[in-house]
């Protein structure tokens, strides 16, 4: 027997405090709540669609605006930063890109929306049912609080679509509170069976959608075999910097200290914590024509001087790299305007490099590194990552970084394990 109060004590009205009250009090608020949930589901759907579109490893536009006429954006944006961050998905080493948080949000919003409409159009709306809806609305509110805090404190970027979900969550909570207090109190035993059913249904809806995703997400990736290899990895001249670490898998990062993509890559690598499994060496490849003949214009003016400082003071190279990433915009601006002022700033901050930056010896080191790149026929781009001599494909260096790197490390550790 159903414990849903189909009959009710009153079909249209109930007695309360000496007067009859309509049994559908709160319906309008619940409908509004359902609409807010639909809005949240649309936002989560857009975010999920953007995420899934990147599973092919290609460059796609990301929807950055929820406003009418807002266009999707290709290239760097807060939305892209959010999508590529490790907080955008779970199980990133198990699935390429991971299981997107937005997908779970999509299911939760859709479920709560459907639940709100189901309650709204029941014969009698009581606080017993709206109470459950109120509790359910705490799920997206809690998730929004967590991911909103991460965006503010760790990412420093907000994407409008995500904000749309936060707003929808907040609205749902407010509307759930209002509808709860507007609904009639209800009577009789608590409908625990119905609550349990809804709770299980919610879990099943989210679980099933995750299952569909896990089963249908593309997993045959040719890029896991890498995109080229080092042909002459020996370093007789000592042009590669060694970064201290505890890892054992040999890896080489090709970086430009003033390259924004390198900074993002470095952040993602550190956040993945997989860098701790690598014995990392770094080849400096400044995309600055003042020292690099392979680029015709200085994409990152000043990169040669920062690179020289790192090579002049190898013990501090990792710190200098972190400093240059942190102050990248300022250093780029200075490099473009006044090379001498940049050298002064570098040597003031890093005195060990003083008397070395700008000399023929430091320039020789840069040139030797670039000639090492020629010997190995490296692509003229940064960043690049080579794991055990094998180059990670460019399409795997962002969303699929954890999955691919984990796979490459495991393949190096267990070469007979088969792999892909």
């Amino acid at each position, binding site marked *: 027997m*159903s414990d*849903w109060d189909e009959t009710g004590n009153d079909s249209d009205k109930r007695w309360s405090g000496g007067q009859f009250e309509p049994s559908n009090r709160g319906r309008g608020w619940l409908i509004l709540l359902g609409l807010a949930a639909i809005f949240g589901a649309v936002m989560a*759907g857009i975010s*999920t*669609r953007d995420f*899934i*579109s*990147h*599973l*092919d*490893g*290609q460059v796609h536009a990301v929807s950055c605006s929820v406003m009418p006429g807002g266009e999707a954006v290709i290239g760097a944006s807060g939305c892209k930063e959010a999508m590529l961050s490790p907080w955008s998905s779970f199980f990133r080493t198990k699935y390429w890109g991971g299981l997107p948080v937005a*997908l779970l949000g*999509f*299911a939760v919003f*859709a*479920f*709560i929306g*459907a639940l709100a*409409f*189901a309650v709204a159009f*029941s014969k009698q709306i009581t606080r017993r049912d709206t109470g459950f809806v109120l509790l359910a609305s705490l799920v997206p509110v809690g998730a929004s609080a967590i991911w909103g805090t991460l965006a503010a404190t760790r990412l420093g970027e907000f994407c409008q679509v995500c904000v749309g979900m936060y707003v929808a969550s907040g609205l749902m909570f407010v509307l759930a509170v209002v509808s709860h207090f507007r609904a009639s109190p209800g009577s009789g035993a608590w409908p625990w069976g*119905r609550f349990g*059913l*809804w709770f299980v*249904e*919610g879990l099943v*809806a989210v679980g*099933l*959608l995750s299952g*569909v*995703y896990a089963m*249908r*997400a*593309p997993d045959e*990736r*040719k890029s896991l075999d890498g*995109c*080229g290899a080092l042909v002459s990895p020996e370093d*007789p001249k000592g042009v590669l910097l060694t970064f201290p670490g505890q890892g054992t898998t040999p890896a080489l990062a090709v970086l430009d200290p003033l390259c924004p993509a390198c900074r993002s890559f470095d952040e993602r690598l550190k956040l993945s914590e997989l860098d701790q499994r690598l014995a990392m060496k770094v080849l400096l490849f400044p995309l600055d024509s003042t020292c690099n*003949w*392979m680029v015709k214009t200085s994409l990152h003016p000043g990169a040669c001087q920062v690179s020289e400082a790192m090579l002049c003071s190898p013990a501090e190279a990792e710190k200098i790299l972190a400093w240059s990433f942190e102050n990248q915009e300022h250093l780029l601006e200075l490099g473009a305007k006044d090379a001498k002022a940049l050298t002064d700033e570098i040597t003031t901050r890093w005195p060990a490099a003083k008397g070395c930056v700008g*000399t*023929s*010896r430091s*320039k*020789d080191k840069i*040139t*030797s590194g670039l*000639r090492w*790149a*020629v010997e190995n*026929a*490296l*692509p*003229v*781009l940064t960043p690049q990552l080579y794991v055990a001599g094998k*180059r990670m494909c*460019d*399409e795997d260096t962002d969303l699929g970084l954890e999955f691919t790197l984990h796979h490459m490390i495991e393949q190096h550790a267990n070469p007979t394990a088969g792999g892909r």
Partner: protein
Amino acid sequence: MGALRHIIPIFLGFTFPAYFVSGWLGGAEASLRAAEPGATNVAVASMAEEGYCTANLKQIVRRVAGACGLLDAQGRGCQPADAAKLVALSGDDFNAMFLPMKERVHIIQFDKKSVDLDEGGRAAIETAWSARGGASFFFVVSRASPEGSVESNQELSNGRAQAVLAHLEATYQDPDIKKRVGLLQLGEEFAQLSTDFCQWQRSRGGDECDEMQINRSAIIAWIDCAI
């Protein structure tokens, strides 16, 4: 009806998202299958190839580099007679080859009857070496002024070229030096420099310069030709 109402939330909460997500995933899979990994038009790191690398220059460089031991890493150098035969050019035409490289040529000057580098000479060699960029060959073309015997000038010319090589090796201890440096010891017999070269980058740029002084020298230059 009541039972149906119970499954509305899960029905709508699952089927609508699942419908869209399945479609998007199918599209991503098709796109992934169509894509080739790493298929981007990115240039590959290579040695420099400047505009002055004419076919004629490349031919001469290759001949000289091969005959002077550069390509087989012997670095033994070429004597004036070898050079004249190899380049198959007149002295003036040979010197004219360096004209497009005026900005990167350094002229290391020596005292009369001396093969010793001074401070300015050492600094100029280091500057030239560190500015090699992606160039393939480093040429040292040494000469002597036409004073004294041909033999003694050949010795001076050899000594000057060796002094440049020795300084490079002592300073950089780079195994590439022997593979990259070619010595052309011209003595007084072939391709003497005119005073026009006094205007070029000289290690004694502040000092006066005449035809005798400019030929007590070693011209050093990287050649940016992918050969």
